[in-house]
């Protein structure tokens, strides 16, 4: 019996971490629709096609290879798409987040295998192995989740659920006991509570990015004019000669990437070709690649030659630089003292270094760490960094709460607002434990004197 009407699920099918390619598998009835939405249509079953993966906002994520398997001839027995992207955890994560935003659900541990089994794609004799697998894997997943839920995140979510139950109970009391002598509806108080809850969901959600940074590393792109000393800086930061350096401008034609652990963080330094305002044809290709890398950067090191006037950056790059993601590095301070920064860069943190001699490098490392740390959320003294599954649920909770807020403001029908609030409660419940309607009634009866 094919298990119909299941949701469409998505997950990384290859081990996470860096590799040549990463494979993302999508399975379920929506697969073909998603293909049409993202790539303009599926290829012939069991053949691959090359295409751009653009997210819902139209931003290019990666060029990928995708393969469509029509049901029942697929691993799971359902319509399935396999998306091969570059083996960069950050890219894979962005593809997955986009798929979740388009309506996929993160797959449970072992869920592809389970579906394969239920749809008769696996031998019956494998049933026991599947069960063991599902059990073992969900236990491990549960263990991992529980560790987090026992900590700060669990306390935050439990607190939010408790406050939301209070709000829901009050709204439900007005709906279910319309003739009762209840205190006058205090929409303003309820609105404040819902707003606070929505903001809290938002703050927790903001740590999703930090969670990804922790796991996958901070993409730190080194940019600047030719011969500003970017490659020398990379070598100095890494402590070994990763990049070829020469006094000739434009030695780096392509980009180079090398990770390094800095305090608690993994930093992925990316050296790029210099931004020559009047490039030769070969250089021009290098600059294009620099701009591509810049589009994916978490952090920028803008390297300036202290002995030269400040350069004019291409607008595609200048628009991406702001005080929260850029450290201005005055290099060659062994040759000249740094000058003034243009108005646009006022307020940027800046460090004077000599990549050649090593001065100022420690200060630069501290500036990088400080900037990364600003992404994190510290609550109750514990660090919170949520994963993609929690992010999906928190996004939904936030959307539902925002809808409830709008209805509270507009004075719209209570039962519709209650529907939104219940949606938020369900979403938070998926992280912190399901809330039964009995709990709402318990709250209602203990807080309000109702009934005849």
């Amino acid at each position, binding site marked *: *019996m094919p*298990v*119909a*009407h*299941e*949701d469409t699920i998505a997950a990384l099918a290859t081990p996470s971490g860096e590799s040549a390619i990463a494979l993302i598998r999508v399975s379920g009835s929506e697969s073909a629709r998603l293909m049409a939405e993202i790539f303009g249509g599926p290829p012939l079953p069991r053949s691959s096609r090359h295409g751009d993966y653009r997210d819902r906002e139209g931003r290019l994520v990666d060029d990928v290879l995708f393969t469509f398997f029509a049901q029942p001839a697929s691993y799971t027995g359902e319509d399935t798409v396999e998306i091969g992207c570059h083996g960069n955890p950050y890219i894979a994560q962005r593809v997955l987040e986009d798929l979740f935003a388009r309506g996929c659900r993160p797959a*449970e541990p*072992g869920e592809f295998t*389970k579906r394969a*089994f*239920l749809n008769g794609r696996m031998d*019956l004799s494998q*049933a*026991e192995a*599947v*069960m*063991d697998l*599902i*059990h073992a894997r*969900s*236990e491990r997943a*549960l263990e991992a989740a529980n560790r987090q839920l026992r900590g700060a995140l669990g306390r935050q979510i439990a607190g939010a659920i408790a406050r939301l139950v209070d709000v829901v109970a009050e709204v*439900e009391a007005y*709906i*279910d*006991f*319309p*003739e*009762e*002598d209840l205190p006058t509806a205090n929409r303003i108080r309820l609105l404040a509570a819902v707003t606070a809850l929505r903001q809290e969901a938002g703050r927790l959600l903001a740590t999703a990015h930090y969670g990804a940074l922790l796991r996958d590393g901070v993409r730190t792109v080194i940019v600047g004019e030719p011969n500003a000393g970017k490659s020398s800086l990379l070598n100095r930061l890494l402590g070994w000669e990763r990049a070829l350096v020469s006094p000739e401008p434009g030695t780096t034609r392509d980009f180079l990437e090398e990770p390094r652990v800095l305090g608690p963080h993994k930093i992925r330094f990316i050296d790029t070709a210099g931004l020559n305002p009047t490039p030769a044809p070969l250089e021009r290709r290098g600059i294009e690649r620099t701009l591509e890398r810049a589009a994916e950067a978490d952090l920028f090191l803008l390297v300036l030659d202290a002995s030269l006037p400040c350069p004019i950056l291409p607008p595609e790059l200048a628009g991406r630089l702001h005080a929260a993601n850029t450290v201005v590095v005055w290099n060659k301070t062994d040759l000249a003292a740094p000058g003034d920064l243009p108005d646009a860069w006022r307020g940027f943190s800046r460090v004077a270094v000599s990549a050649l001699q090593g001065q100022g490098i420690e200060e630069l490392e501290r500036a990088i760490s400080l900037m990364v740390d600003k992404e994190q959320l510290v609550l109750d003294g514990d660090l919170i960094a949520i994963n993609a599954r929690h992010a999906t649920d928190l996004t939904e909770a936030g959307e539902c709460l925002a809808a409830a807020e709008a209805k509270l403001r507009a004075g719209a*029908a*209570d*039962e*519709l607002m*209650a*529907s939104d609030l*219940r*949606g938020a409660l369900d979403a938070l419940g998926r992280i912190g434990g399901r809330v*039964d*309607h*009995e709990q*709402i*009634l318990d709250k*209602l*009866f203990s807080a309000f*004197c*109702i*009934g*005849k």
Partner: protein
Amino acid sequence: MAYVFQDKTFDVIVCGAGHAGCEAALAAARMGASTLLLSGNIDTVAQMSCNPAIGGQAKGHIVREIDALGGEMAINTDATAIQFRLLNESKGPAVQSPRAQCDKKAYQFRMKHTLELQPNLQLFQATVTELVYEGTRVVGCRTNLDIDFRGRTVVITTGTFLRGLLHIGMNKNEGGRLGDYSARTLSASLLAAGIELRRLKTGTPPRISGRSIDFARMEEQKGDEHPTLFAFHDTHDPQALFHVEQVGQQRLGWVPGTDQVSCWMTHTTEQSAAIVRRNLHTSAMYSGQIEGVGPRYCPSIEDKFVRFADKPRHLLFLEPEGRHTDEYYINGLSTSMPFAVQLELVRSIPGLERAELLRPAYAVEYDFAPPTQLWPSLESRKVEGLFMAGQINGTSGYEEAAGQGVVAGINAVQKTRGGSPMVLGRHEAYIGVLIDDLVTKGTNEPYRMFTSRAEHRLLLNHGSAEMRLLPQIRKLNLLTPDRRQRIERKAERVGHWLTKLETTRHQGLMWGDHVRREADAPPVSLPAEFLAESPQVQAEVLYRIRYRGYLEREARVIERLSGLERVRIPLDLNYREVRGLRLECALKLAELRPATLGQASRISGVNPADISVLMVLIESGRAGDRPADPGTGT
């Protein structure tokens, strides 16, 4: 063996003629089954032992569902009500609910007359003393008259009569209701079959004489000018509505909702609170006389003053008990204090300073059978052929009882015919939510329906009850062909206009968009042909258009969950031996024995990983290839 009644084997015997019993008997007889309805006193069939009202939040929805399934409660209420009010009128249609004050006696008389006239149904007065079993099957019952009755199935609807014990302060009397007897021996018969029983408690306020009330000191609450009726009169045969006061062969037409009477609002005072506090030790409940658990949503006045001590006053409603009586019910003043205290308490209330009590308030304790011992069909898991409905299942309320009665009656007939039972989904009906909650979770207090118990509340608006239940109506042939066709025609018109209004442009927008924007845009007048449709069709179409986004969201959730609802769990599954199930979960499942994975997933303490384990086990076929069990429905 004693005399066997008419030496006949009935298809269905219903023991008890309260709201559950009457509906069970009518439902069975209307399906063509030979049916017997036994009551200890046929003068008190369909008695409203507590307040003289039908409907209200969620309850009103249930009454409309009963009407859709061919039951009598809705039409009986319309024909005998003396005041109609639509509750939550300021909110959306999904949570609006009709409510009516009834003439208690008229309600009973009309119901009795209906039972008497119903083909295939016999009414008989006798008190059931025990059930007769053959092995694990029920085959009939014995009565206090030494007359035995044989039946293929038995539906028991004992209300508060099962070892009923009445409390007024320290005073105790056996009885299911003041002035009535108690079913003393039937409990032993249920226990002997292995059915567990526990105690619940409920209460009722004093009744007072109208001539002793000073209405000038109270606020009047009138009925609605345009009453919202319970029955779907647009699809009923007009002949069905007759007024009970018209005697003789001719059933005269009557317009329900005319000549309505008023209720009156007053409140407790500081003096009332002081009286209650001073005498708390004499209350049956607060002095430890009562072991049963009472309902939290219907607190006694003792509870209100103790638990909400900072609330200065509590609202009270005076409700007339009928057109031909001067008796009034004091809604909100349920108590188990001694009579002398009750009198003092009543007279501390504005307008009741000189009140004369006709009957005291009292609490009643009674046996119920925890409903987790039932299949979703309402058949006992322990005794084949035995069905239960109403307060014996731990519920409270006339409407909740009647809803279960309809289901038990239909399913008893299905049992005799070897057909699959009617199991309503949580997204189909409040009755579905009610029974699913009862059989999967049980209850620790008298269970009352609330709209907040229905996670798909927006789909369960009262106006759509007939259309929601149309598949069941067709499958079980529940209504006359005429009425079914009228419902089908209505559903067809609703479908037609939904499509038309969502796909036809008017002034640059779809009609549907105009409707959704009407809150913040000048109103457009809808097409004349639409306005020519019946008000019921128009209301339903507009509801579905206005709430479209929400209804679609609900439908998607249901679609996602429906997979689990379809997977049945074998009856004889040994949960303790399922590898990978946590012990806590296995014990819970073994106790509750859910019929489907959907039910299992709603049991607290069962998590998604457990459901995965069960799913794989079931789909692998190793859990046994048993035929469908009687409880799984679908």
